[in-house]
């Protein structure tokens, strides 16, 4: 927790900001430090009581209390500081209320019924070959153009039998290690690089940040850890390896990416293949830190199960993603293509602390059937000459509800800060909705913030024009939607962009009668 205390020495970091949407932007002081000792005492008491759970068990009993957290921590053989941190988060969480400000309607999760930890299923439990996999699922993979070799891995077939993923993984790992990049599960990093994890974990999204981030801090299961040393440009997109291997990270994912001075990395998260999951609630946290001249590009394609066409089932995706451009001239780019989940609640944000730092947010969110997405970004300008760009494209079809919610805040000291926001919505049919909630707060006279917004309907006229040129309605819709999303897709790495395009096509199938 030392780093939290260090913040006091830097006036820039000592800005406490509570954001709409709940949560603290930065920890302003070190009450944390003070109550650690106190907590330790209490904790020790609890500890005695807590560890009655059989740690040999494959899963924790449903529900959440301190013993569940102790169980998770013990399962992962975590150091004491991390367990303490988790418990502190949990105790804070107990004092919080589930937020209701989002423009969303859903049944709140029953935390007493959730199993917060279960051991990853061994591959041996899965289907033995592709013949045992649901043909509908394979059909979708085919439509998405996913390489055959990956079908098996995605469908959960014992991968080793199909192709040698271990050696693929090792090749990548060797290549990365050569240049000093650390890329591993965060549970592994806790043991192999405790000093880094300890230094940065929870500094961007504090454990007290918001209801779901706090819950995540208490019970996170696993996630990725990336460290790019000074001056190193990551030689590859951190993707393929990840896609095949990052199954079973569980519903409470935690990712931490650190780019040292002059480092750069492009990280791809997710997968266009429809991911089915037994867990209805997903509450992930992602923290990015970019030091001087560092560059982090974080691209997401999210296609969790959205529920059926009547809105039954589907994943709740409540995610806190935040990056801090801590260094001068640093840059963080969020690009997301969100087509899945029944309910999405997600605002990848940038804290532009360093002078001349740049934050970018490019988003396509599609809601079909009864899906709801409340998504957007926060750009907090603190440093001088900071720039941010927000391009948001929302597409609603069926009964889908698409909400853009964004905050652009330009602090007093952010001389010459610039923001450009473009927020476009497209409606298909007359039963869906698009809503925009932009917040703009400018406290510096030299700053400029621009906001453009449009709402369009895929017009009968556009479709007729395409039809009249021989193009079928389905192809016409794909063409129009892809044109609409062009500015975002071109921010995605090439192969990801191709997949994202196909994903939109598949997601919109049968959306027009």
């Amino acid at each position, binding site marked *: 927790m030392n780093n939290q205390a260090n913040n006091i020495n830097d006036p820039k970091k000592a800005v406490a900001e509570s954001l709409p949407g709940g949560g603290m932007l930065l920890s302003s002081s070190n009450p944390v430090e003070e109550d650690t000792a106190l907590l330790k005492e209490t904790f020790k008491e609890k500890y005695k009581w807590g560890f009655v759970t059989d740690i040999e068990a494959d899963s924790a009993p449903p529900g959440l209390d301190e013993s569940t957290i102790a169980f998770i921590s013990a399962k992962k053989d975590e150091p004491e500081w991390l367990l303490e941190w988790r418990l502190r988060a949990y105790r804070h969480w107990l004092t919080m209320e589930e937020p209701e400000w989002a423009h969303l309607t859903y049944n709140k999760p029953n935390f007493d019924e959730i199993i917060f930890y279960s051991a990853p299923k061994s591959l041996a439990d899965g289907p033995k070959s592709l013949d045992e996999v649901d043909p509908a699922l394979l059909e979708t993979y085919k439509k998405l153009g996913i390489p055959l070799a990956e079908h098996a891995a995605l469908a959960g077939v014992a991968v080793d039998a199909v192709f040698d993923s271990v050696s693929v993984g090792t090749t990548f790992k060797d290549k990365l290690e050569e240049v000093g990049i650390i890329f591993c599960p965060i549970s592994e990093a806790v043991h192999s690089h405790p000093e880094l994890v300890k230094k940065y974990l929870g500094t961007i999204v504090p454990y007290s940040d918001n209801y779901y981030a706090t819950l995540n801090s208490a019970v996170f299961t696993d996630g990725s850890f990336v460290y790019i040393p000074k001056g190193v440009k990551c030689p590859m997109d951190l993707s393929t390896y990840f896609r095949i291997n990052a199954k079973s990270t569980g519903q409470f994912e935690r990712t931490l990416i650190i780019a040292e001075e002059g480092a750069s990395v492009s990280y791809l998260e997710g997968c266009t293949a429809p991911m089915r999951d037994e867990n209805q609630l997903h509450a992930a946290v992602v923290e990015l830190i970019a030091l001087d001249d560092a560059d982090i590009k974080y691209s997401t394609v999210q296609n969790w199960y959205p529920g059926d066409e009547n809105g039954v089932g589907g994943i709740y995706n409540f995610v806190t993603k935040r990056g801090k451009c801590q260094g001068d001239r640093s840059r963080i780019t969020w690009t997301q293509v969100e087509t899945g989940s029944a309910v999405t609640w997600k605002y990848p944000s940038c804290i532009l602390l360093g002078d001349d730092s740049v934050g970018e947010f490019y988003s396509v969110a599609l809601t079909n059937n009864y899906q709801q997405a409340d998504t957007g970004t926060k750009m907090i300008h603190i440093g001088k000459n900071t720039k941010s760009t927000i391009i948001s494209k929302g597409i609603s079809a069926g009964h889908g509800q698409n909400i853009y919610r964004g905050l652009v805040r330009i602090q007093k000291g952010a001389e010459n800060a610039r923001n450009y926001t473009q927020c476009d919505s497209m409606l298909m049919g007359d039963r869906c909705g698009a809503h925009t909630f932009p917040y703009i707060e400018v406290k510096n006279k030299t700053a400029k913030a621009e906001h453009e917004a449009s709402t369009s309907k895929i*017009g*009968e*006229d*556009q479709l*007729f*024009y*395409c*039809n*009249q*040129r*021989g*193009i*079928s*309605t389905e*192809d016409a819709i794909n*063409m*129009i939607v*892809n*044109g*609409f*999303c*062009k*500015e975002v897709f071109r921010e995605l790495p090439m192969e990801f962009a191709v997949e994202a395009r196909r994903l939109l096509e598949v997601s919109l199938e049968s959306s027009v009668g």
Partner: protein
Amino acid sequence: MTTPLLEITNLHASIEGKQILNGVNLTIMPGEVHSIMGPNGSGKSTLASVIAGHEAYEVTEGSILFNGIDLLELEADQRACAGVFLAFQYPVEIPGVSTKFFLKAAVNAIRKYRGQEELDAMDFLDMVEEKAKSVSLNIDLLDRNVNEGFSGGEKKRAEVFQMAMLDPLLGVLDETDSGLDIDALKIVADGVNQLRTQDRGFVIITHYQRLLDFIVPDFVHVLKDGVIVKSGDKSLALELEEKGYAGIEACKSECSCA
């Protein structure tokens, strides 16, 4: 006997319950150019939209045969593939979609329907270059999004260019001359004239006889209140210019076409 290219019989059509066409009869043989004139609101554009298959219009009575097949049975995209082309009065913009990309999709959809092989990028670009010349269309325009930022004249030229690319059997031009200056009008007319063959037919919808100086029609029809009230050769257009549509009504009783 040759099959008519287009045979419209007693066509009645409405939009949102409002009756617009009240029994149109029109027969076009291959190679013929027919001009349809008429006052505002007489149903000219509706006729074009109904031929092309716009869903908003409901055909309440009558039939349209295209090369002997029942056109009303086909969806709009199938009609296009079968060889019906409509040059729009107000071409629609499609943001984010380049004209080239759009046209390649169109050309190949139609080729596929006709059992021809799809064009690859090279052949397609060759074709683009050749056809663009025929309407003096700046080829750089085709890298722009469909009709986005095109001037009025560019839009109309692009429509004729698209017609050349898609090689239809029937070209329906809906007020392609509106908003064009005389030079642009000549270019567009020239483009259309180059496409006149003995197999291809045209329906030219216009307010003014000016266009018909350049695209000389075989027949001229006057549409009024949703019916063709008078037909004749190109001299009818001149007569209209002189007397106006009001003058046409007077001769309705002695006219054979009513």
